[in-house]
């Protein structure tokens, strides 16, 4: 809701929208940095099989809790050390990148598409449909999201897929609300009225005219949603309800390593740092996209 404001008529930038977008995007160093980090994470995720020195679940039982190589007692064989049953942390982090990206992509895709659809329908058609959809969203929003996610996981049983499902469910109302509010604001605008007068059909109006004009806030929300997805899934993992061991998901690694917070810092800090960096990169990217997409902020 926040991002919407009075867009005037569509701005048609002279050099072509894509080029102009790219131009303003690469000007933003943070966004570029985010993009580079994300690309790197994607590459790592894809090449995990090649890059990882060991299997993420192989247990080197004679090498438990080996510290990272730069600390006394560290070994080159395990550059980032090992966990409590002797699994190589670097390998687990590399494979974990895969899972975290998958969580982000799936949760955002599912919640965004369902949420936007609901929001469009509610905002555009109004009346009973609007009331029914928005009441349901209100009910879901009135429960703390983590609590709702925990209840959903408690019902479905703990696990990565169920955790993703639970997170998708709880973040969905945000998209629905945002979209609906944006639609309501746009509906009153001249260009929509003009399209209507020109005889545009409902569907066309909805997807062709209004949706593109609500895209900017949605894209920002979706990139933020990426972080929410990874963080919420990690929180569920932390409470023992997310991905189950030995799955090298970062949140779960963090959870099962929680007891080492005072004795083996690398087991705790490294997965947390990975989450932080990944989510930060997505947020930087989202920020850059937002600035680049919003024509009014261009110089």
């Amino acid at each position, binding site marked *: 809701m*926040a*991002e919407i404001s009075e867009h005037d008529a569509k701005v048609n930038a002279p050099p072509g929208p894509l080029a102009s977008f790219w131009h303003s995007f690469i000007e933003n160093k943070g966004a570029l940095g985010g993009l580079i980090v994300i690309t790197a994470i994607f590459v790592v995720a894809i090449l995990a099989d090649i890059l990882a020195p060991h299997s993420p679940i192989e247990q080197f039982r004679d090498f438990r809790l080996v510290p990272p190589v730069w600390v006394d007692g560290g070994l080159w064989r395990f550059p980032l050390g090992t966990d409590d049953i002797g699994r190589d942390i670097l390998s687990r982090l590399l494979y974990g990148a895969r899972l975290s990206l998958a969580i982000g992509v799936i949760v955002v895709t599912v919640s965004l598409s369902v949420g936007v659809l609901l929001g469009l329908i509610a905002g555009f058609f109004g009346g009973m449909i609007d009331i029914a959809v928005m009441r349901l969203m*209100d*009910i879901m929003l009135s429960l703390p999201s983590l609590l709702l996610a925990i209840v959903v996981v408690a019902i479905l049983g703990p696990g990565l897929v169920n955790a993703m499902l639970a997170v998708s469910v709880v973040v969905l109302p945000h998209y629905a609300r945002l979209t609906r509010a944006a639609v309501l604001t746009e509906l009153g605008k001249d260009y929509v009225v003009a399209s209507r007068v020109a005889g545009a059909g409902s569907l066309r109006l909805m997807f062709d005219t209004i949706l593109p004009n609500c895209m900017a806030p949605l894209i920002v929300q979706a990139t933020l949603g990426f972080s929410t997805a990874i963080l919420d899934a990690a*929180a569920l993992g932390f409470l023992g309800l997310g991905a189950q061991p030995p799955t090298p998901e970062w949140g779960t690694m*963090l959870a099962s390593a929680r007891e080492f917070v005072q004795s083996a810092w690398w087991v705790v800090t490294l997965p947390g740092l990975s*989450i*932080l960096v990944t989510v930060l990169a997505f947020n930087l990217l989202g920020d850059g996209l937002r600035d680049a997409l*919003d024509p009014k902020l261009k110089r």
Partner: protein
Amino acid sequence: MLRFVVSRAAMVIPTFLGVTFLSFFLIRLVPGDPIEVRVGERGIAPERLALLRHEMGLDQPLWHQFYAYIVQILHGNLGLSIVTQTPVLHEFATLFPATLELSVCAILIAIVLGLPAGVIAAVRRGSLFDHSVMGVSLAGYSMPIFWWALLLILLFSVNLGWTPVSGRIDAIYDVDPVTGLMLIDSLWSDDPGAFRSAVRHLILPALVLGTIPLAVIARMTRSAMLEVLGEDYIRTARAKGLSSFRVVGLHALRNALIPVVTVIGLQVGTLLGGAILTETIFSWPGIGKWLIESINRRDYPVLQGGVLLVATLVMLVNLAVDLLYGALNPRIRHGR
């Protein structure tokens, strides 16, 4: 305006019913029941299980139980906790002030730091300050708060010894819970040490819980301000020679506040979610921890009653936000 208020307030009723329904049935979908969960390894003879289920009314058809529950609610009674056998409402009233205190302090920290930071960042767009604010708030937003909490405890409590590790006040202070808000109760007791102790206990959990709202508010304020500052009327105001302070403070901020208020409202739910983790880590005796434990113990009355109370609270806040939104933005209320 009155029509808007009434119609918006009326919308709370179906939501309330929906939450009552949802909380009752969702919880019963969770496998296991309170007796099974309690008995542990030793198990329980089927006859005794049947007897206990009968005594608790768990052998009734679900619709009967739901009907009985609704009748109970209409009498203002949320039932007794299965585990402690004390009224759910009483437990909520005992624990809620702790969560309220924590959340209010968290959101205050977020607003006091986030709002000015966002405004200044927007006004000085592109400056070092802007970049720092955006960087820090992004990092805050990206933070797994349970991990953040552990790191803060490690630094401030374990290594530096500046703040206590957990709880609301030192065990040596025996403060009577008059309001349940430790800051006020400890101030009331004529011991200055008690208040200091309460503040020191509150600061880390409030900071942890306030981290995400702080980041969100700073971001939102900045982007909303940037949009508003780009509007024609602001440019006009500036062109008319109004002072920069007046423009920013009066015209721009007022309009930029609309989305920010909404976001703060939306943060209430997030805050209570964060409270679950924060309370667990800092042993903060609030409702977040209470609800999680009730799921683990399948304490149906606590969970359905607690969820209902929490949801009602969030609904009321949302209602207030919407009304405020309507008051700030005339187009919304006339649009209906």
